[in-house]
């Protein structure tokens, strides 16, 4: 069976103008650079990496908030990359939704909870008010805002951060999408609220049969949420595989450094420093070699001369490193 979403060599370049009156753009940020992966039906696929690695850009490309420079996105066997307008795009918008990071900015402050959640229903052709009310009440109950009547006519400023994020989730889920891009949905929330939102998203996957692209910088959150995981560095996927496999047996030196840098909630444990050199550089006109080369503690001559390594299968997961599997 074909996967729900298949992404092939997806690339997004952002032009940078170095001078105001430059006639031609000569510099590009390679935000997403030849990324390929597939998300199966009912699966939670995680995208992790540091800020600037291209994970949010990838998410926006998948919901068509951005147009790719090249590459293909296939949803349920249909190439949607060049979809521009018309009923096909509308059908796509119903199938694919997004949950944003900051529920203080993603909700319209002048819309009631009902307005916010009912708007996508109207857009997708639910014209009967009674039906919209019923659907909104149903989804509110599903996201844990009960009893629904007490929340329907409130404004965002009357809600806490956790409740707002539940409204944002309800708005995304009310049209019964097949695929949802969740971009750091818990990172703005308080610690004691986060677990509830994560469990809600896991529960909705079971109840509604939805798949997620789950974007996060937090490896522990990714471990909790995701079935499979891709680690990104400067626009490239450097490692991909089943979550536990990637986190317990990381093969790419960048994945290893990321894991080693996560603080451990045990005061008796002494964590060794991660092995990584220097700082992240901007992905403007990157050299052809491995993106991680300037920071890699183990780089060999091969890495300095060969192009960026392809993703190769090693023990259940894909790694883009010439040295993986050698020692």
């Amino acid at each position, binding site marked *: 069976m074909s996967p729900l979403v298949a992404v092939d060599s997806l690339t997004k370049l952002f032009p940078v103008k170095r001078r105001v009156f430059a006639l031609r753009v000569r510099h590009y940020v390679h935000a997403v650079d030849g990324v390929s992966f597939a998300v199966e039906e009912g699966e939670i696929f995680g995208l992790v990496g540091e800020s600037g690695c291209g994970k949010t850009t990838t998410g926006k490309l998948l919901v068509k908030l951005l147009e790719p420079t090249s590459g293909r996105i296939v949803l349920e066997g249909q190439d949607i990359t060049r979809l521009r307008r018309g009923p096909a795009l509308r059908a796509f918008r119903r199938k694919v939704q997004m949950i944003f990071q900051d529920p203080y900015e993603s909700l319209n402050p002048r819309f009631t909870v009902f307005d916010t959640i009912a708007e996508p229903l109207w857009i997708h052709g639910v014209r009967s008010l009674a039906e919209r009310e019923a659907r909104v009440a149903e989804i509110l109950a599903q996201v844990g805002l009960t009893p629904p009547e007490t929340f329907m006519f409130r404004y965002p400023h009357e809600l*806490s951060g956790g409740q707002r994020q539940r409204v944002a989730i309800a708005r995304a889920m009310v049209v019964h999408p097949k695929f949802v891009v969740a971009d750091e949905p818990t990172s703005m929330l*308080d610690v004691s609220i986060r677990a509830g939102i*994560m469990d809600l998203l896991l529960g909705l996957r079971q109840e509604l049969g939805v798949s997620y692209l789950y974007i996060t*910088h937090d490896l522990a959150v990714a471990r909790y949420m995701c079935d499979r995981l891709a680690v990104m560095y400067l626009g490239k996927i450097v490692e991909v595989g089943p979550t536990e496999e990637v986190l317990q047996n990381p093969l790419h030196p960048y994945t290893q450094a990321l894991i080693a840098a996560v*603080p451990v909630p045990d005061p008796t444990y002494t964590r060794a420093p991660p092995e990584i050199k220097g700082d992240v550089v901007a992905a403007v006109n990157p050299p052809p070699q491995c993106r991680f080369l300037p920071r890699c503690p183990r780089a060999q001559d091969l890495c300095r001369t060969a192009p960026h390594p392809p993703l190769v299968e090693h023990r259940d997961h894909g790694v883009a490193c010439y040295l993986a599997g050698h020692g």
Partner: protein
Amino acid sequence: MPLLDVRELTLHYATKMGDVHAVDGVTFAIEPGEALGLVGESGCGKTSLALALLRLLPDNAKVLGGQILFEGVDLLRLPENEMRRVRWRGISMIFQAAMNSLNPVYRVGDQIIEAMQTHLNISYAEARRRVAHLFDLVGLAPELMDRYPHEYSGGMKQRAVIAMALACDPKLVIADEPTTALDVIVQDRILRRIEEVRRQLNMALLYISHDIAVIAEVSRRLGVMYAGNLVEFGDTVAIFQRPAHPYTLALMSAFPSLKGEKRRLRGLPGEPPDLLRPPPGCRFHPRCALATEVCRTQAPPYAEVEPGHCVACWHPQHRRCA
């Protein structure tokens, strides 16, 4: 004598809707050279507490009671001109969102030199030498002092702000979420740098964070705040091995972990209380599974469960998880 001794500190913010009970009856002490952690969620009063220690609270804040003894002197009674001498030389602070606390139109080095010349009686040349030394200490190339903030990356700005906090050789540095906006690898370096500098200079550190894993790594003793109250305080290892307050236990089980078995998280029901009208009795009782009648009506006593380990709870969990 402790370096800093906070006793029964209570402070409210006056708002149009009434008083916000931001910090209520908080008591703790920091020994010279000690690394103390303070953990809690947003709005629990940890930043208000830090600002109170430096007397940098906004105008609508009212300190209703308590003492802040720094080297035996009550900072709350100090005239402003003497308080100014305590800031930077006695107590300095690394602010939250430090990325934005540098002035964009001045060279980074000059901003630190300005602070030094205001507070220490030293020449420009001497101050420059000191900045070069501090840059070295926090892991920045000394040449960078003649650059502007926009030429720095996020991690570099954070290091510069740490260098600035160390400029006048303070006895206590308050770090308020200094790594929250940073990526993990940069965070790791900053945490290691802070610890190294703290040991070298023998400073005390008050490290404030919402991240219990970070607190576990940086602190020897820690305090847990909830809704304006200090609910648990003690040795970090003791609290992690034997959390006595149900909120501390909840905080620990609410975080997913990279190590060990993958387990289900237990989020807390409800939301932190509105501090305009804090709940009567124990402020945690509406979210607490162990709450009984007494919790709903009377504030719990703040008492020792083992030597040096205090908790404010009617039903402390004695040695439940070893």
